[in-house]
């Protein structure tokens, strides 16, 4: 999607290894979000950021950490991957709380 890219698009990793997913935006938006999508659950918020170095937890934050050292990058780290973290991860950006989100194309992560 224009203005937001996620990398990698696909990843297979082993249980217990750390994994970092990257979200990069060129829109200079203040807000950035990480969601995971699983069948039957819709999208669930993991962490979000409302500015550089300002982050907060979402609904399903256990086992995940984030960092935002620059406006354009929001990193999601799985500290020690587990099979329950197999999912599709979406990053989203927004310019304000009364605006729609723009989503990335997603990262499909498989933990074996």
């Amino acid at each position, binding site marked *: 999607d224009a203005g937001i890219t996620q990398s990698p698009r696909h990843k297979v990793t082993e249980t217990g290894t750390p994994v970092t997913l990257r979200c990069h935006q060129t829109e200079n938006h203040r807000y950035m979000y990480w969601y995971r999508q699983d069948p039957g659950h819709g999208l669930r918020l993991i962490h979000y950021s409302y500015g550089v170095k300002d982050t907060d937890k979402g609904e399903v934050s256990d086992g995940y950490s984030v960092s935002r050292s620059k406006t354009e990058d929001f990193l999601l780290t799985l500290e020690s991957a587990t099979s329950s973290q197999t999912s599709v991860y979406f990053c989203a950006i927004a310019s304000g709380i*009364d605006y729609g989100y723009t989503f990335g194309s997603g990262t499909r992560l498989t933990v074996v």
Partner: protein
Amino acid sequence: SQQGEEDPQALSIQEGENATMNCSYKTSINNLQWYRQNSGRGLVHLILIRSNEREKHSGRLRVTLDTSKKSSSLLITASRAADTASYFCATDAAYGNKLVFGAGTILRVKS
């Protein structure tokens, strides 16, 4: 927890028919949004309706909001095969700058 719950879970219609999806939520909101997701893709923002609005239109889309019933509906008129997708409602739940999504409605439009 899901703030928004869509109904029905799945809907199959013929091309040219109208499709209606409903969303119910639990707490007061500032706004409610609808998104579309094509298979294997990210979500695309369709429309936002604020809590002080009752109806909003965008092309073939019509969204209504009833805050007294904590519910919203999305109507797609004259549906096309290209409308086949999952549709999600999302609310900000009046407590901040993050959206909570429902589980979605899968719409299939048969040509």
